[in-house]
């Protein structure tokens, strides 16, 4: 071999050494806990088209744990303040690609106690085999109801079918029998909506007369709206995202079609009403015909009794997160972080801050007060015990409110418990 080759080999060896994270050697203590610091993982799309969800959601986590560290002094409410555990977040960008999700999981799995956020259904499924094997408790920021069946996954919030079932209950209470149509996004989010609506239709005795899917990149909704109109639907359920919601309503207005529109929580964003100086031309239509259903019991800024959680959120948002405008996903992330905090508190109280201890704490969490952000939540080991919340709130559009929503009704339909989450 010539000297040239030796030189190249030397360079190669050097590169290999730099890149090597040696498996051999190194002492492991309780993974993810170093002294008085707990590390939590966040795998979220922080760039790319899904960043509109990932960024506010992760900000919700950041703000909440900043509150825990700085105001509460850390995790462990029965410990003296200087003995409490500070929370550190390890945040990695998944770019909304399952490939990258797998790589980021591998990057963080030896550093964190648990994963507070894994966003995306397909993405979480890609790391599911490893989660099961490594026994790392993971908070799924996706509303697929499949997670109820997974031991190591924390289902986040109430699955979407709950929202439609409660909305249908509300209609029944008002004596309305709707001819229902649904316009839904062509992915698992939309599929959940369809499941929920069809179940509600069977329960409450109405029919779904039209179903139309659309792709998130669609700009024209003539087909979908026409389908609803010609089937005679007077209540159109929307499983959509804000950009599409606006376009659907606009198309309906152009076609002179004004049913009652009922949207899930992600279908709405405050910007849809425009600004005070330039209100959206659709504002009158929205105020008349649009309802949004969410899990949160309290409106942004509603700080009365039963809404202590919302008050805490507003205060912390002002203190730590002022750059983040009021946003549904921020609330969702904040609420999720709060749940993770309760799990950690229980683990500390039980004296077991290891991976197994955290899972045990999760399974034994009962009737945790969420201060109005959600109904009190309970988890358990069995699937049916893991439906965290069954209540929803119905809102109408009011531009004078921070996210332009005004509370109409909060309810908790008994039909929700009959939904086959665990089949």
């Amino acid at each position, binding site marked *: 071999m010539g000297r040239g080759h030796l030189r190249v080999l030397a360079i190669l060896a050097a590169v290999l050494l730099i890149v090597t994270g040696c498996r051999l050697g190194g002492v492991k203590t309780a993974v993810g806990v170093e002294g008085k610091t707990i590390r939590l993982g966040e795998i979220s799309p922080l*760039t790319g*088209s899904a*960043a*509109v969800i990932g*960024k506010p959601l992760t900000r919700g986590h950041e703000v909440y744990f900043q509150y825990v560290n700085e105001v509460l002094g850390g995790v462990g409410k029965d410990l003296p303040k200087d003995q409490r555990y500070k929370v550190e977040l390890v945040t990695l960008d998944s770019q909304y690609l399952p490939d990258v999700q797998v790589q980021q999981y591998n990057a963080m799995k030896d550093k964190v106690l648990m994963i507070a956020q894994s966003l995306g259904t397909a993405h979480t499924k890609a790391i599911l085999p490893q989660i099961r094997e490594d026994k790392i408790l993971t908070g799924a920021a996706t509303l697929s109801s499949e997670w109820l069946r997974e031991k190591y996954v924390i289902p986040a919030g109430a699955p979407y079918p709950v929202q439609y079932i409660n909305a249908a209950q509300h209609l029944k209470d008002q004596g309305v029998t709707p001819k229902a149509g649904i316009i839904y996004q*062509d992915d698992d989010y939309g599929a959940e909506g369809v499941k929920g609506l069809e179940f509600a239709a069977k329960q409450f005795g109405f029919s779904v007369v039209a179903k*139309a*899917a*659309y*792709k*998130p*990149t*669609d*700009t*024209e909704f*003539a*087909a979908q709206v*026409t*389908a609803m109109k010609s089937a005679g639907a007077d209540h159109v359920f929307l499983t959509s995202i*804000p*950009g599409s919601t*606006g*376009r659907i*309503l*606009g*198309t309906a*207005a*152009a*076609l*002179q079609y004004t049913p009652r529109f009922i949207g899930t929580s992600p279908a709405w*964003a405050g*910007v*849809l009403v*425009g*600004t005070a100086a*330039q209100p*959206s*031309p*659709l504002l009158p239509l929205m105020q008349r015909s649009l309802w949004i259903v969410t899990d949160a019991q309290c409106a942004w800024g509603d700080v009365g009794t039963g809404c202590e959680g919302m008050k805490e959120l507003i205060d912390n948002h002002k203190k730590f997160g002022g750059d983040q*405008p009021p946003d549904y996903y921020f609330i969702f992330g904040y609420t999720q972080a709060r749940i993770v905090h309760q799990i950690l508190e229980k683990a500390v109280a039980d004296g077991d801050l290891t991976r197994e201890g955290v899972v045990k704490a999760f399974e034994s969490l009962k009737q945790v007060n969420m201060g109005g952000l959600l109904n009190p939540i309970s988890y358990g080991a069995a699937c049916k015990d893991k439906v965290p919340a069954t209540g929803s709130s119905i809102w109408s559009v009011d531009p004078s409110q921070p996210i332009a929503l005004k509370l109409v009704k909060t309810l908790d339909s008994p039909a929700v418990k009959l939904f086959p989450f665990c089949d």
Partner: protein
Amino acid sequence: MSDLPQLLAQGLALGAVYGLTALGFVIVYKATAVINFAHGELLLLGAYLVYALHVQAGIPFVAAVPVAMACMAVGGWSIERGVLRRMVGRPTFAVVMITIGLAIVLRQAATAIWGFDDLLLGDPWGASQVTLGELRVNAVSIASLAAAGALFAAFLIFFRSSKAGIAMRSTAIDQEAALAVGIPVRAVYAWSWMLAGATAAVAGVFLAAFPATLHPALGFVAFRAFPAAIVGGLDSPGGAIVGGLLVGVTELLVQGYQPRLAPWLGDNFHVAASYLLMIVVLVVRPYGLFGTREVERV
């Protein structure tokens, strides 16, 4: 069905937007033989600029649009000057990759400045509608058709009669001969990118106008306009407009009728439909409807 006139009207309006997009595309291809995959992002930036000028800075809409067009023209010029000029003589797919890399950078820049949220453009047409006989059409649709027509007429005059236009056409036909005759070919490249930028701004405005919203994924609509450019012929500006209208109408008609007449084709067939239309046209006329046949010299 009484839906037909309505669907046709919306199809033509969408087609106008596609035509405008394809036009910018074709101008660059005709002059430089480069497919600009960053065109969608030029549209996006044009729309965001109008938003910044009109909604954030308060400039009236009629002034904001020309200013945005001018800015995008400068933007196009700087892309050509800064990046593409170094790529003269390189294989085409390398240049295509550069435009793709540019697209990534431009999209990230847009989200860094304006965030990811849906924004309202604040266009003057809003939800107002015009009644034509028994048809109610959105005013913005009429405006987009008018703009497409006006721009096309302007380009026609420009290419036929003005010195710069004739210079561009000559360069497109034979670069070496143009150089030999004294035409500043480098300048022609720059002009074509400037025109593409300006056209993109207009297309972006109509894409983001009511009832749509302005958001970062808008650039992907440019891919729906590709079939328009191809169907018309990659080097024919008139073909771009015709192709755009054809694709727009096809999409809307398929949207309206396919779920009822041929549901086995699946949901949302209209996107695939425009590409299938393109493939059918290409099988019959491999250079598009109005494209010039490439003559390969031995």
